[in-house]
């Protein structure tokens, strides 16, 4: 993924091992693409300062699992910067990128989904692309956005063979959700790497049960596009939400609570959440832990049969 240097002022992080960042360094120059000392709290704090000064700051955290030392800077600083200064100061030009999610062998500390923690703090935005084209368009939109954006990239995408992406001009740079398939029987809602799994589950539901699914990619977790989702569930009457993050207090809980309040009279079945279990991400048990296609398919079957 090559991002034109005119949109980047500074890209930095503790470990710029990712190929995309390596390649951009000769173009942008080492004063604009650089390594920092190894401290996530430092990286995010530094980024807030750089952005407040007016520079576009793109910080990279090696894995979302390692972003936690920066939590204070995110919650107490980035999220409140504009509000506490009545917009006299803000750190809008800050974007923080981090790979997240299961990768097959990541275990506790290379598989985490952290969007649930960051969705809970007003003042920042949280964006999650499902594939390479989306990643490019959404990242550009995130960089241009005048609010600090936390951009979580599905880790497995770095190993994916590729995806032909369309011209820059036609990429959607807005951060609303996107319906990927029109359907009439059930709304299936997710984001990031889980979209691939949900697509397969929807195909299974179509072929084995003749069920027509409307698959929606949320794309932005905070603030999230309620209207598209509510409109869809009012039409279908059924909702299956899925994410890798653990079930309890996961982002799916926010989605389910909002939909039941707004679509109560239209619901034909209880909302299903298909998520990771409430344990640390276990390496050898990953195939049993993740919300795989059969678990998602089973949830679709449950709401349809209800």
């Amino acid at each position, binding site marked *: 993924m090559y991002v034109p240097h005119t949109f980047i002022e500074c890209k930095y992080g*503790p470990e710029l091992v990712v190929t995309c960042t390596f390649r951009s360094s000769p173009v942008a120059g080492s004063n604009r693409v650089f390594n920092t000392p190894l401290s996530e*709290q430092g990286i995010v704090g530094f980024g807030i300062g750089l952005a407040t000064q007016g520079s576009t700051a793109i910080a990279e955290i090696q894995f979302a699992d390692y972003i936690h030392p920066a939590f204070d800077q995110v919650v107490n600083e980035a999220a409140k910067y504009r509000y506490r200064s009545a917009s006299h100061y803000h750190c809008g030009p800050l974007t923080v990128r981090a790979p997240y999610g299961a990768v097959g*062998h990541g275990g*506790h500390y290379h598989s985490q989904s952290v969007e649930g923690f960051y969705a809970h703090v007003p003042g920042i935005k949280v964006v999650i692309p499902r594939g390479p084209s989306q990643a490019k368009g959404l990242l550009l939109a995130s960089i241009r956005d005048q609010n600090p954006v936390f951009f979580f990239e599905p880790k497995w995408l770095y190993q994916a063979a590729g995806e032909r992406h369309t011209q820059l001009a036609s990429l959607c740079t807005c951060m609303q959700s996107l319906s990927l398939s029109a359907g009439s029987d059930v709304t299936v809602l997710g984001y990031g790497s889980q979209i691939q799994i949900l697509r397969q589950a929807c195909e299974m539901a179509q072929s084995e049960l003749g069920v027509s699914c409307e698959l929606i990619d949320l794309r932005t977790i905070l603030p999230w596009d309620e209207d598209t989702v509510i409109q869809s569930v009012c039409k279908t009457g059924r909702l299956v939400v899925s994410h890798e993050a653990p079930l309890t207090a996961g982002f799916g809980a926010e989605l389910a609570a909002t939909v039941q309040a707004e679509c109560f009279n239209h619901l034909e079945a209880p909302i299903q959440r298909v998520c990771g*279990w409430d*344990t640390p991400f276990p390496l050898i*048990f990953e195939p049993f832990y993740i919300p795989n296609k059969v678990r998602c398919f089973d949830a679709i079957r449950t709401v349809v049969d209800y």
Partner: protein
Amino acid sequence: MAAGAARLVGRLGLLVGRRARNYGRMGYSDSAPSRGPEYTTDLAEATVSLTSKQPLPVYRVLSAGGEMLDPSQDPGLPGETVVRMYEKMVGLCQVDQQLYKAQRMGLISFYMTSYGEEATHFGSAAALHEKDMVYAQYREPGVLLWRGFSLDQMVDQCFNNRHDLAHGRQMPVHYGSPEHYFQFISSPLATQMPQAPGYAHGLKQAGSDNCVIVYFGDGAAQEGDAHAAMNFAATLKCPVIFFCRNNGYAISTPVEENYKGDGLAQRALGYGMEGYRVDGNDVLAVYNVTKKARELVVDEGAPVLIEAMTYRLGSHSTSDDQTGYQDMSEVKDWRERYFPRDRLRGYLQSQGLWDQEKEDELVSVTNETIRSAIKRARAEKKPSLEHMFTDVYDVPPLRLRRQKEEVQAMVAKYPEHFPTASHE
């Protein structure tokens, strides 16, 4: 409260020109009476300057080839102890090679070698007592091997089979062993560091004469947790040895991009503790320094920092490729001149404790042990599915018990979609 009131009085004293008391704000020693600050009109005297500051020298005992440089520094260890250091070092070198290959062959998912840093493990471990608690980063398995953790146990953990003490939950090389007083590894850098003085404080309160050692790298040393750890340890007087493996790289970040000062050892002064800089590839020097550090830590109940200068000969892990950023001629140079295994063998040979026949025998036996460990570990079942849900808490909450039933029902309903056959 009294201290706060006293500080206020002190400030007032400064305002009216009287000599202010110190109240522990300055100075290094608990025992030296506080005379109060020295005032000066010469700014140069009140300056901490970098000009003409030389890097702290590096303590060593053996030459690059393994000759004893100064007999007064010979630790005088029994021959069989030094031979054991070598045998364990060879074990580590060989298991590193074989498990690295196993990852490349797809038998295990991940591996990290300790290539080039073996002396930091065995030199330090040999100077500790067996019940001194160890907090490690992830590149210190030699400490476990020294204490008696077997090559088979290492292999079982890396294969995530049913013999792994932690039921296959973590990535390979995330060892731990209560029997060997070794805390379980976690991947995030430096998170173990503030925990070590906490544990040490508890030991001290309990009247133990054991201490704690915490290992970390030059990269981890830049984390906020590292600062908190050293400051807490010194301020609260905790019997902990901070052992930094300065191997030159944090994945692809060279030390020049991680800090500007003279490495780690001199930071000890800033925190109010003693610091040592040692040649990390000289196992006997590492032994001497750790032994001295331990005596000080246990006698005074206060921390010490050791910075072991070494070099990472391999890539960070199997997910990394050092050729992308490391100067391979620099790697070659360190390998040829300062490889700990060769250096120790040189010493043993010079003492008449080792020869080629012993070498061939050891390599052959060790390789066979590891090969059969791998063969056995591969064939073993993975841990039972019930272990996905145990140990989250001491007692599983109701919701978790229900989730376990849900998984079991899902597996029964769609058996072809779950790899149950490979689990116990």
